[in-house]
């Protein structure tokens, strides 16, 4: 499938991500859409490694590397300082991993959403603590192997997109690297809707952590959408739901078959996973009018 994207070069090559890394791909689309009038906040994660060791930087904008749990508060501090100086144009974006968002950084994120801070918060969701070597986060899905859940995760993935919707923020979207034009459109939309916290959850398959080949990032991302595991949708003001891409007949079995983190699953396990996905999709579908 072809796509055309207008990019302003903010994200540069030569960074330290694994070859084929989806996080790096996502950063390219996000930063090159945001442009140069932006300041980024990045907590410890693979994103921080990709951002680059001093004195190098892969990003041609100011990047503040914060602590793992503080991204939303750090971004809000920058935005408020800019506002106090009369600067209402510079975009402040926090770009954090799922661990830094769903787990340890969630309190600060929820509070920034409640205060409706004028920031964009992007979660690069690779469903685990990858920088520390693939441990479980609350974004890790049911039954997936991680090094801290060697027998498979016992609980389902936390539904942070819906939790963010429940904060009645102006904009929440799910996106993924296999659909670059959709991701770019959502970043642009987030930029246009100023005056509140805009949240985008971007599924970014981790090659090493998920056990897929270097070239399989975009393909795996598309399978997640097409099997109904990760529908792409957006919600405005906590109530107006729009579906962008949903399941197209592929099954959970098609999705898990390509990933080593699921290779311990029995056919019964896969059926259980399929039932979970069906249930979630039915629930979500009711929200699209």
């Amino acid at each position: 499938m072809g796509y055309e994207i207008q990019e302003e070069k903010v994200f540069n090559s030569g960074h330290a991500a694994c070859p084929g890394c989806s996080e790096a791909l996502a950063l390219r689309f996000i930063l090159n859409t945001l442009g140069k009038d932006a300041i980024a906040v990045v907590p410890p994660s693979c994103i921080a490694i990709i951002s680059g060791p001093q004195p190098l930087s892969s990003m041609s904008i100011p990047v503040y590397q914060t602590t793992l749990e503080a991204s939303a508060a750090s971004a809000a501090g920058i935005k408020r300082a800019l506002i106090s100086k009369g600067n209402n144009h510079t975009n402040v974006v926090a770009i954090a991993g799922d661990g830094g968002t769903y787990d340890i950084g969630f309190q600060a994120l929820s509070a920034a959403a409640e205060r409706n801070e004028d920031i964009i918060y992007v979660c690069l969701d690779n469903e685990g603590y990858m920088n520390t070597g693939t441990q479980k986060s609350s974004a890790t899905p049911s039954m997936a192997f991680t090094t801290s859940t060697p027998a498979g995760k016992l609980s389902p993935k936390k539904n942070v997109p819906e939790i963010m919707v429940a904060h009645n923020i102006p904009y929440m979207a799910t996106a993924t690297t296999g659909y670059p034009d959709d991701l770019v459109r959502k970043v642009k939309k987030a930029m246009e809707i100023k005056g509140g916290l805009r949240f985008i959850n971007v599924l970014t398959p981790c090659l090493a952590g998920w056990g897929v080949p270097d070239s399989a990032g975009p393909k795996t991302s598309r399978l997640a959408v097409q099997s109904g595991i990760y529908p792409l949708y957006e919600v405005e003001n906590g109530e107006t739901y729009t579906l962008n891409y949903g399941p197209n007949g592929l099954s959970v079995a098609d999705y898990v078959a390509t990933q080593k983190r699921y290779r311990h699953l029995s056919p019964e396990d896969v059926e259980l996973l399929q039932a979970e996905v069906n249930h979630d999709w039915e629930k979500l579908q009711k929200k699209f009018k």
Partner: protein
Amino acid sequence: MKTDSNRLLLSGNHAVSHAVRLVKPNVMPVYPITPQTPILELITEFHAAGEMTGEIMTMESEHSAMAAAITASLTGVRVFTATASQGLLLMHEMLHYAAGARAPIVMFNVNRTLGSPWGFWPDQTDSLAQRDTGWIQYYCENGQESHDTTLQAFRVAEQILLPAMVIHEAFYVSHSMEAVEIATQEQVDAYLPEFNPPHRLDPQIGESWGNTVSQVMFQNHRRDMGDAMERVLDVAKKADQELQDLVGRGYGIHEQYRCEGAEFIITTMGSMTGTARDAVDELRAEGVPVGLLKIKLFRPFPVADVREILSGIAKVMVLDRNFAPGTGGILYQELKAALYGLKGAPEIHGYLAGVGGTNISPVNIKDMVHSAIGEKPVAHSVWKG
């Protein structure tokens, strides 16, 4: 320059809020905790009444308050926050981060006991436990001093580019009402130039902060922070003198009270100094040659000054309203380290007095002096509370 209309009956905490009103920070992330809360409440009242502008951020935790304070400061604006006790401890990670980022945030901390168990009492262990975080620390004994020192802290922090913590104790100072002379706006504007740092987070400049560094870069950065801390001693003395020139009140970075001809010196910090002054007066009247050394600037510790002041003194008695299990009183440890190897160094009696907020009266201090005079000191802190 002074007018009577600037004299108000205020709690120690409200004396701080008035200083903050005059300083006009751009960003103020806040979070409530007893006994700090009145500081933030009066600031938000000033703000609501239009007497202050700037961004008030009602955070969900002290950790986030300090996180936002750091980035606001690094974006190039003046920042204030306040906390106490558990709140200060929750900030611990970010206190190191702030100093490493060379963010000249000013924070007020109201000393309160640390759980567990819970208590609300004056005890300096909360802030003293942050002594290695790279923050400048000032200890104040009354609302007037807290008001004036808050102004000084901005002047020093912004010249040095290190964060500064100004501290007074729960209730004894935070909630006691006293007549406080409030600085005028003209005085404060003359004292504090606009804060406009050349390095800041700004797309026009393009500089970043926080990236991973090499071992050598890290070491050099820590060394720079150490050099900056050293410079605080002179800058703080000067800032005190400059404020004194404007408002007629100065404190020094430490104070010697009736130390002329003294053979015995009491050393302490914070509200205890007021009590110790009374004890000194009474002992002097009895003919006991005793004086008082008040440590106001605790970080950086004024090592050279303390060595000079205490050289040739027979005995020093340190009163610690704080306790580090395993090592004892923290001021006692600092003072022993500062005096190590000094010719004619005094004997040091380390007394744990007022830990947990127990009341220490002038009579208690006089009794301690009398018993110390007749005793050989031991090598550890002794409970006197």
